[in-house]
């Protein structure tokens, strides 16, 4: 959905735009504005800054404890000397995750959100100036562990990576459709435990994802044994190459689910915002 082209006007709400011409004291204003417009504007500014330095930025989302930081540690070790990486860590409290990343010699900034359950574009904007963006290839943003809220906030990143560990239920994509629909790739993590977790079916997890009309690849990885790391890194390199091609044409990337919305609704300029109408019933 966008608020720019009038696509928000549907058969269900068109009546809100009609004025009855009377001079009632109460005025109804049709707005049809995105509720998170402020966040989305900041996200767009973040994306422009990242694009000016060509830094592919990936938002990692999952439940708490599904192995986001372990995946990052294994990824950093595997890419040492090949790609320049930095990490933004989001947690309610502690610097523990950032410390784990820094121990590997990689720049990491911790955002502690206090009680907030997600990162937003403004929190990320405060950290970006502290990073040496001109010396980076890839920025990972490890979002707060939560399968609900982070999916609603654009941070200005280019890709969403959603982890589902095999210690969780394989029907999670069906239970949390908003989160899993947003994934550009779904990583099944901790696959070394599959031998003792017979109840988890990777096929069922993938079927639940496909039911959400998602074409995202499903990659099985174990940060512990290294299984699937080549496939995950192959995907990462392929997306980085694609991003660089886009940048050469002065274009950018957005998570697939956001691009889909933009394609559906076009990018025309607003005509209908703040169009005043009179209230239909008398007060």
């Amino acid at each position: 959905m966008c608020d720019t082209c009038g696509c928000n006007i549907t058969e269900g709400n068109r009546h809100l735009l009609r004025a009855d011409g009377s001079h009632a004291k109460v005025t109804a204003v049709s707005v049809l504005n995105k509720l998170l417009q402020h966040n989305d504007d900041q996200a767009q500014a973040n994306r422009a800054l990242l694009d000016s330095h060509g830094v592919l930025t990936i938002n990692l989302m999952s439940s708490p404890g599904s192995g986001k930081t372990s995946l990052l540690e294994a990824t950093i070790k595997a890419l040492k000397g090949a790609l320049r990486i930095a990490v933004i860590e989001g947690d309610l409290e502690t610097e523990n995750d950032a410390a784990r990343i820094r121990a590997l010699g990689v720049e990491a900034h911790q955002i502690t959100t206090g009680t907030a359950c997600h990162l937003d574009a403004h929190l990320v904007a405060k950290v970006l100036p502290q990073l040496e963006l001109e010396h980076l290839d890839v920025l990972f943003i490890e979002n707060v562990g939560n399968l609900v809220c982070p999916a609603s906030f654009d941070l200005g990143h280019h890709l969403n990576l959603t982890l589902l560990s095999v210690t969780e239920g394989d029907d999670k994509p069906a239970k949390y459709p908003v989160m899993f629909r947003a994934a550009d790739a779904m990583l099944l993590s901790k696959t070394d435990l599959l031998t003792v977790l017979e109840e988890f079916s990777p096929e069922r997890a993938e079927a639940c994802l496909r039911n959400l009309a998602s074409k995202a690849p499903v990659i099985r990885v174990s940060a512990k044994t290294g299984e699937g790391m080549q496939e995950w890194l192959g995907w990462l390199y392929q997306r980085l190459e694609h991003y660089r091609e886009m940048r050469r044409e002065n274009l950018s990337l957005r998570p697939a689910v956001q691009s889909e919305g933009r394609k559906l609704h076009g990018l025309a300029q607003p005509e209908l915002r703040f169009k005043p109408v009179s209230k239909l019933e008398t007060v």
Partner: protein
Amino acid sequence: MHELSVCMELIDQVEAIARTHNAERVETIVLQIGSLAGVEPSLLENAFEIARLGTVAEHAELRTERVEPRIRCQVCSHEADAGPSDLRCPACGGTDTALIAGEEMILARVELLQPAD
């Protein structure tokens, strides 16, 4: 829950609209929330109770209109209502569908009380 963050942005937008229209106060706020928007209307209403305090919307009523998911099949062009966790095409069974409604998070309308002329 992130409903409070959403409400704070909502209040910012409503205050700006009230200023533009020289309103004394806000009577009603109407939202459209898709069931795939990731926002729960009842939690949004609870958060609104807090967020509106001390603002021009302090006495406003919040109404949310639920928008259910609707898909268009990219293969057979069939359009249909869908469940939040099953966006397949009911006609051909395909999974290549586009969501055409259901992820809205929109401020649809604000009713303002303006000073009498």
